C-alpha cells in the first residue's frame, strides 16, 4: 500500500477521532461493571483517548506493519500498562482484547462512511487496519502472559525455598524439617542449602527430620544418603529423625542400607542424641542448682 493511501486511512481516524472515541466508549460502557463505576468510567475515557493519540502518533510514520519498530514503543508500553490496570479493575485479558477488536470495527465502519465514492478501496484499507490492530492485540496479550508466567516462575522458586528451611535449633545443631515428597530438584536444593548453612554456622550436627515426608522410595533414599555423605564430608554428624513405623517398614522391605546412620523416631529423641554428641546435658532446675542448659 502506498504512503498516500496510508495517510488517507489515518486521516479518517484523525478527522473522526472524537466520534470514534464516543462510539467506542459507549459500547464498552454497556458493560455493567463500568456503568456503576464513575471512577472507572473516567479512567476509561482518558485511556481510550491516550490510546488513539498514541496510535495516530505511531502510525504517522507510515509504518503500519512492523510494530517492533521504535515508533511503536510508547504505544506498546502504554498497552502493557493498560493491561495491568484492567487486571486490577477485574477485567480478563479476553475482555481487553475484545475491546480493542471493537475499536477496530468502529474504525473500519467510519472508513466505509468516508469512502462512499471509492468503495472499492475499503477491503484493502480494512485489511491494513485489521492487521495492525491484531498485531497490537497479540503483542499486548503475549506480553501480559509473559509477565504472569514470570510471576508463576518466581512463586515456584519461592515455594522451593520455603519448602527447605534450615533452622539452627541450638548452637552447633542445624535442623531441616522436610515436608512433602523429596524429588531430585528438591534434594539438590536441600543439599546445597543444608551444606551452606552448616558451613555458615560451623555446626557439627545436622538433624534431618522426615516426619512430613509421606513415603520413601529407593530414589528418595538415594538422595538422602547422598546428602548425608556430603554432610559427613564437611565434618558434621547427621541424625535422621521422624522415622515412622511405615517408613521403617518400607526402608527394610526395600533393602535400603541406612546402617552407619543415627536414626530416631522423633525429633526430640534426635535432639537428645545431638546434645549427647556435643557433650550437653538437659537437667531440671531444682535437681541441680547450677544452670546448665
Amino acid at each position, binding site marked *: 500500500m502506498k504512503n498516500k493511501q496510508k495517510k488517507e486511512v489515518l486521516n479518517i481516524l484523525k478527522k473522526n477521532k472524537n466520534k470514534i472515541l464516543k462510539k467506542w466508549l459507549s459500547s464498552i460502557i454497556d458493560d455493567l461493571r463500568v456503568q456503576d463505576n464513575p471512577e472507572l468510567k473516567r479512567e476509561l475515557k482518558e485511556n481510550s483517548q491516550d490510546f488513539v493519540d498514541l496510535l495516530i502518533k505511531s502510525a504517522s510514520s507510515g509504518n503500519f506493519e512492523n510494530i517492533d519498530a521504535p515508533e511503536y514503543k510508547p504505544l506498546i508500553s502504554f498497552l502493557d500498562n493498560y493491561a495491568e490496570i484492567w487486571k486490577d479493575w477485574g477485567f480478563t485479558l479476553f475482555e481487553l482484547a475484545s475491546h480493542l477488536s471493537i475499536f477496530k470495527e468502529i474504525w473500519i465502519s467510519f472508513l466505509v462512511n468516508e469512502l462512499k465514492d471509492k468503495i472499492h478501496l475499503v477491503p484493502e484499507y480494512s485489511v491494513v487496519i485489521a492487521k495492525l490492530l491484531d498485531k497490537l492485540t497479540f503483542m499486548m496479550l503475549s506480553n501480559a502472559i509473559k509477565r504472569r508466567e514470570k510471576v508463576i516462575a518466581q512463586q515456584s522458586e519461592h515455594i522451593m525455598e520455603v519448602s527447605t528451611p534450615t533452622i539452627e535449633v541450638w548452637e552447633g545443631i542445624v535442623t531441616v524439617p522436610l515436608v512433602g515428597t523429596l524429588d531430585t530438584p528438591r534434594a539438590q536444593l536441600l543439599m546445597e542449602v543444608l551444606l551452606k548453612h552448616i*558451613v555458615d554456622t*560451623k*555446626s557439627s550436627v545436622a538433624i534431618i527430620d522426615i516426619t512430613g515426608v509421606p513415603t520413601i522410595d529407593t530414589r528418595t533414599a538415594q538422595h538422602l544418603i*547422598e546428602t548425608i*555423605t556430603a554432610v559427613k564430608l564437611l*565434618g558434621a554428624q547427621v541424625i535422621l529423625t521422624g522415622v515412622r513405623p511405615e517408613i521403617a517398614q518400607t526402608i527394610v522391605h526395600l533393602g535400603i542400607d541406612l546402617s552407619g546412620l543415627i536414626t530416631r523416631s522423633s525429633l526430640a529423641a534426635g535432639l537428645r542424641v545431638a546434645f549427647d554428641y556435643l557433650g550437653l546435658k538437659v537437667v531440671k532446675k531444682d535437681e541441680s542448682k547450677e544452670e546448665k542448659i
Partner: protein
Amino acid sequence: MTENLSIIKVEDVLLATIPSDPDDETIAKLQDGILESMKKYKVKGVVMDISAVETMDSYFARAIMETAQMVSLMGGETVIAGMRPSVAITTAQLGLTLKGVHTAIDVESAMEILRKGSQEGREKK
C-alpha cells in the same frame, strides 16, 4: 602450582594446605612431604586444609585416602578440614566416601579432633 603447597608444624600437629586445583605432581609432592614431616617431627596427626580446593576427582580422593592410611601406619591420624559445600556435593554424587578419614568444618575444629585423640573418633556413635 607447587609453591602454594605448604606443610607446617603447629604445636603437635602437621598442617598441610592444598592449592585450589592440585595436579598429580602436587598431590605426589604432598604425600611425600607429609610422610617426611611425620618422620621428622613427632606429631599426633595431620590436618589437610582443602578449603581452597574447588574440584575433587576420584584420583585426588584416592590419594587422600591412601595418604591417610600411610599416616595411620606411621602412628598418626588425618583430618580433612574445610571442604567446600560444592565439593562435598560432587564428592558424594561420585560415590566417594573418604573412608577412614576424619572430616572437620575448619582447621580449628580439626585441631580439636586431633587433640582429643582417637578414642573419641567422630565416626563412632
